[in-house]
């Protein structure tokens, strides 16, 4: 921590949040809101005079609310930067008439109530997401009496109580009577590994954290008794089994079975635990002084909107696996890469992990970022828009739909055509799909390249095919996930890949129906996952237009389906493929031929009017 605070190459921005990131690999621009810091962190000498006079007393979050702090306070003794901080939320108000005591006593005059939030623009080549996790809140399923019995505490509260820097200076005391508990129970998997309560996954570190805590108990309080209630002890890492063995040798009892019932003795707040020992098959009852809940961790719940704030995963278009953690570019081969180039993950934002794995992953992420930064230059895929000025009518639609502001609008009066900023074009193809004059083409994803694929898959046995357009990042990758998981589904789907579903021109859909497709599926990212900001909204609008027109022409709109499938949703991909396959069975040869006839007529009309 100290090293990071004083490293000449690290600019530390505390009390700050990233509000937006734009750009592309090697060339990102970030906007960071540096919240008003009412204490000048460079000037503060941590003398503590301000704290003494502050009249506000609130629970101290760092101490898990087990002690209090003032409105002006040190976050914790070793804080970096080493400075007091003033909580605007807790302060009586920045009006010196209302209070202003801290300002009066500050010799260095480093308190200023008038500072404002600041927006800082930063240019970077790479982004590392290390936003961490949240600890499971046991109040959610209050099964062990956490909210009713004072001597039931969480493993995090145990950490603060046993820590020399904690509210009791390292004395583990019972909240009810401040006595040292000599009989302590530990309940494992609180919030973890349950389909109905908390989360279904294993939180990874809680077993070993409890093993550690039992050792701290026997070290601090010789003669104390610890009992651990567990379903499995997962001591899988290097040195873990040794530690587990040491704990058992110290006399800690490990009982396989989770408490079925916890009651409190109203006389003395002792806890009475009923548990089935699943090894002996017997019911046991234990009287304990304290019960510690080994809480797992959950993906961080970002504050969403209300105040216009967007969570960081949305800003960076990050997808999530079914457990809610961010999804890697590849679970084995690119475990620290985000699907977006130049963005990497470190720590528990990616999955639950302990400190050692977090440090390892942070090293890997910085190594990946360093490779990119040291290379000095980066090549961008040659998938960008090209405008044909002969066909362009200077209507400006392309500029309006481009999610990246890569197109400067045309101007008919000045006879100026749209100007493409190739470096800013990310290649979604929305402009090409929306251009009413077919004046925009996408390099490497040209109209005729895509229609050639449609023609090829419908050449034979067309009644057995579902023509499916899938975006590269989510739906196509969702198909890959289904494959990796060996999820079986009917073989009717024929995937045609585009970078974004925004590329899917209405004409592709009509082309498929005109060539005899019984079913067409358009599939893209969920709105929040779209890799091209909001291109997917244009996909939806376009498909809705096609539905309306199909209805008008007497073609069943159900034959065109629209689905959002993320890269992690292999299960959903397989389910959607089963569903569209079932719909395919309802389409008759006659219906398809009728559609082909109708669309041939439409095409003839279109060509006639064009001529």
């Amino acid at each position, binding site marked *: *921590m100290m*090293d*990071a605070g004083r*490293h000449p*190459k*690290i600019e*530390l921005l*505390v009390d700050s*949040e990233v509000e937006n990131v734009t750009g592309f690999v*090697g060339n*990102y621009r*970030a906007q960071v809101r540096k919240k008003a*810091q009412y204490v000048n962190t460079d000037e503060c000498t941590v003398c503590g005079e301000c704290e003494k006079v502050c009249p506000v007393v609130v629970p101290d979050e760092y101490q898990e609310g087990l002690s209090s702090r003032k409105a002006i306070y040190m*976050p*914790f003794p*070793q804080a970096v*930067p080493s400075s007091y901080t003033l909580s605007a939320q807790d302060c009586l108000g920045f009006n010196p008439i209302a209070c202003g005591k801290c300002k009066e006593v500050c010799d260095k005059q480093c308190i200023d109530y008038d500072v404002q939030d600041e927006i800082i623009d930063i240019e*970077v*080549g790479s*982004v*590392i997401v*290390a936003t*961490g996790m949240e*600890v499971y809140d046991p109040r959610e399923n209050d099964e062990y009496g956490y909210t009713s019995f004072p001597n039931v505490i969480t493993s995090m509260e145990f*950490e603060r109580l046993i820590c020399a820097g904690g509210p009791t200076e390292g004395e583990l005391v019972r909240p009810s009577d401040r006595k040292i508990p000599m009989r302590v129970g530990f309940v494992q998997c609180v919030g973890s590994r349950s389909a109905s309560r908390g989360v279904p996954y294993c939180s990874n570190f809680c077993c*070993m954290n409890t*093993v*550690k805590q039992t050792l*701290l108990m026997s070290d601090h309080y010789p003669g104390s008794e610890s009992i651990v209630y567990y379903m499995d002890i997962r001591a899988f890492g290097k040195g873990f089994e040794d*530690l587990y063995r040491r704990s058992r040798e110290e006399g800690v009892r490990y009982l396989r079975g989770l408490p079925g019932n916890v009651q409190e003795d109203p006389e003395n707040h002792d806890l009475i635990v009923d548990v089935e020992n699943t090894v002996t098959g017997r019911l046991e009852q234990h009287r304990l002084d304290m019960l510690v809940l080994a809480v797992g961790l959950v993906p961080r719940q970002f504050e969403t909107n209300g105040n216009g704030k967007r969570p960081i995963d949305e800003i960076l278009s990050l997808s999530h696996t079914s457990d809610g953690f961010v999804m890697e570019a590849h679970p084995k081969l690119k475990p620290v890469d985000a699907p977006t180039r130049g963005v990497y993950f*470190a720590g528990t*934002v990616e999955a639950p992990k302990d*400190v050692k794995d*977090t440090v390892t992953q*942070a090293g890997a*992420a910085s190594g990946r*970022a*360093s490779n990119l*930064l*040291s290379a*000095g230059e*980066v*090549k*961008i895929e040659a998938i*960008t828009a090209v405008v044909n000025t002969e066909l362009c009518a200077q209507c400006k639609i392309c500029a309006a739909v481009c999610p990246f502001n890569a197109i400067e609008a045309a101007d008919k009066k000045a006879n100026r055509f749209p100007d493409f900023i190739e470096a800013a074009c990310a290649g979604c193809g929305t402009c090409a799909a929306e251009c009413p004059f077919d004046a925009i083409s996408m390099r490497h994803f*040209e109209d005729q390249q895509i229609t*050639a*694929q449609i023609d090829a*898959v419908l050449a034979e*046995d067309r009644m057995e095919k579902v023509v499916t357009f899938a975006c*590269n990042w989510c739906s196509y990758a969702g198909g*890959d996930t289904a*494959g990796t998981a*060996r*999820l*079986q589904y009917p*073989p009717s*789907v*024929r995937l045609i890949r585009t970078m974004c579903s925004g590329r899917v021109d209405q004409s592709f859909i009509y082309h498929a129906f005109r060539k005899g497709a019984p079913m067409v599926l358009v599939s893209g990212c969920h709105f929040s996952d779209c890799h091209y900001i909001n291109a997917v909204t244009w996909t939806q609008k376009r498909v809705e237009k096609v539905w309306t027109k199909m209805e008008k022409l007497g073609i069943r709109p159900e034959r065109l389906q629209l689905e959002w499938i993320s890269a992690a949703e292999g299960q959903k991909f*397989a389910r959607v493929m089963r569903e569209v396959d079932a719909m395919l069975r309802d389409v008759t040869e006659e219906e398809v031929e009728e559609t082909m006839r109708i669309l041939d007529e439409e095409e003839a009309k279109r060509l006639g009017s064009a001529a």
Partner: protein
Amino acid sequence: MNEETLRVGVFVCECGHNIAGTVDTEEVARYSEQLPDVVAVVQNRYTCADPGQNEIKAAIAEHNLNRVVIASCSPKIHEPTFRSCVEDAGLNPYLMEMANIREHCSWVHMQDREAATAKAKDLVASAVGRARLLEAQEEMTFPVTDSALVIGGGVAGIQAALELADGGHQVYLVEKEASIGGTMAALDKTFPTMDCSI
């Protein structure tokens, strides 16, 4: 190279049993021979391995190929591999197209060899149809800003920031709280070494 005459090579990967266990790759290879402008078809045990890549390079030279279709796994895994492979053989990397007959075919239709084979043929035909219309592309090169944004000042962010900064890169470490440290700073000792967390 004469762009007027298309010369497509198709490479069908068995991926050991991963593809060939479900899809009749010989049948797919036979079928590929009659697709328009296909002048060479090669079956490989593992196309991505060096021997497989060498076969691609040899076939490009021998048959003067100007389009390459590789029927194997997902392009999300090996598109970069095969792009650089054809580039090594003197072909523009954008003249290579992949047909995903593993993740999207052999792995998801394991009980139906016939249908999986028919689908694999379609996917190859579709890729050949697209490949015939592919054009050479030049990639743009951009300079990289030599700095990194690390979001989150817990143990992960601190470690990543230090590693990058020690490597000489400018780092911006953004933390929403008043101090860095994150969850780890609230722990007493850490396992398995039982040392202090701060």
